[in-house]
């Protein structure tokens, strides 16, 4: 009875909007109000902070334009290809390094230290090797994606319960069976985490390459809007891109059962 009473009181006391939601709404409204004020104040160069209405119009025209979906498709295809090539090669290298202690000692430190270097500086080389088309963007995305996946998988391999590996060995599993029946199922979380990190950096690598040299893709649209100083269109592109990137990251996290969006 006491429990029921407490529950009833809690149900009655619970406000329609929690304080957290109220604070979030207050912050969002304040930011929007300050933004609108700034856009009309004339304190900044014209259009550096365009009005919300102008950004809204730009967003609408973005969504109603077939050209935008074509460019979105190009970028998505480039990122997908980069993720597939970089992810699979990272997975293979991670498994090889994780399964062999000697190879791990010989080569893992190279990957560990090369991993966090700025990948965009390799873009001139990628242009030389793969041309100015989408291939060089895919290559840069692949290069960016490879390292976090390989490192995450190698670290995941080191953490696999030895008992599981012994079980596989005692069943005389061959290398392929060991990979598919033992390693991959036991490393679901490190792999998904690696893919999540890989997706983030592949997206950045591909889009940065598009802003540097391309004639299609979302990166091209952003830099094109900048070069003609169409700020509302640039903001609209950035907003959609951020929503898509954060959404994709959260989706991969949820898919793999990772509850945080990003824990560094």
């Amino acid at each position, binding site marked *: 009875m006491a429990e029921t009473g407490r529950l009833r009181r809690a149900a009655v006391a619970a406000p329609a909007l929690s304080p957290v939601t109220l604070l979030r709404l207050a912050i969002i409204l304040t930011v929007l109000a300050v933004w609108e004020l700034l856009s009309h104040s004339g304190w*900044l160069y014209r259009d550096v902070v365009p009005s919300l209405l102008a950004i809204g119009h730009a967003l609408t025209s973005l969504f109603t334009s077939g050209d935008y979906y074509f460019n979105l498709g190009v970028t998505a295809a480039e990122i997908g290809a980069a993720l597939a090539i970089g992810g699979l090669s990272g997975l293979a290298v991670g498994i090889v390094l994780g399964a062999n202690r000697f190879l791990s000692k*010989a080569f893992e430190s190279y990957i*560990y*230290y090369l991993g*966090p270097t700025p990948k965009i500086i390799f873009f*001139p080389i990628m242009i030389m090797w793969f041309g100015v088309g989408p291939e060089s963007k895919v290559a840069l995305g692949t290069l960016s994606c490879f390292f976090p996946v390989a490192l995450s998988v190698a670290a995941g391999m080191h953490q696999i319960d030895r008992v599981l590996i012994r079980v596989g060995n005692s069943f005389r599993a061959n290398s392929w069976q060991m990979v598919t029946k033992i390693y991959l199922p036991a490393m679901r979380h490190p792999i998904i985490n690696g893919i999540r990190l890989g997706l983030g950096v592949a997206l950045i690598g591909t889009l*940065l390459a598009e802003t540097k040299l391309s004639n299609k893709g979302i990166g091209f649209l952003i830099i094109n809007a900048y070069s003609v100083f169409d700020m509302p269109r640039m*903001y609209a592109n950035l907003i959609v891109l951020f929503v898509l990137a*954060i959404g994709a990251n959260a989706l991969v996290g949820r898919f793999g059962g990772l509850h945080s969006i990003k824990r560094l």
Partner: protein
Amino acid sequence: MTATAPARRARPGNFAAATVGLGALAAFLLAVEILIQIGVVNRFIVPPPSEIIGSFGRVIVEEHVFSRFLLTLTECLTAGVMLTVFGVAGGVLMHRFKLLQQACETWVAAMASAPIVLMYPLFLVIFGRNAWTIIMMGFFAALPPVILKTIEGIAGTRKVLVNVGRSFNLNATQQFWKILFPAALPTIFVGLRLGLIFALINIVGVEFLINFGGLGQLINELAERYDLAGTYAAICFVILVSIVFFMALEKAERWLRPVD
């Protein structure tokens, strides 16, 4: 960033593995050199490694690499100071006001996964084509991990330490400076290390993209001049600088956190 640093204790096995690693690298470079010399690989796409090594001295002397390095380092350190001040302060503020933390922590985590560096055209418009665009880009891209790690560090302070502070009747300020902050310092430094790495990556990247500043611009200029050997040498130089930077940060972190 999820992997731990490979073990570095000097054992005979480790020495053999390191030798194999270096040997494989040398063998790869030799194979590339031979393939280029016999004409299998086009030297106008991939310059011979010997030519790249030979152009190191030229690039260092003629392209003023030292002053460029100092410029990039200054940009990175400025972003680092801003990260320390605003990132740590932001984390402390969010920990102090729980409601603010509950409202904004998810947003900060989401920003950590957002491609902030793609806002560089926007920063170009706001700050102009100068060092501040590069610094601010590095700062904003690296801010989320510093804030998140500061919150994590303070929230992870052991209960017994907090109770010691309470038993001494410390007020909120004393409790923060004498108990919470020193206990959180190692975790805060992890955030700062990650932040500085992100800052360096973004700073060099934006320098390359907007063709302004230090080492990133050097690569762009050499590539635009089609100085292939110089471009490769400059890329190798930037990678070396990055690796030395990461190693120095790791060493500093180990010094700060002698026991895990």
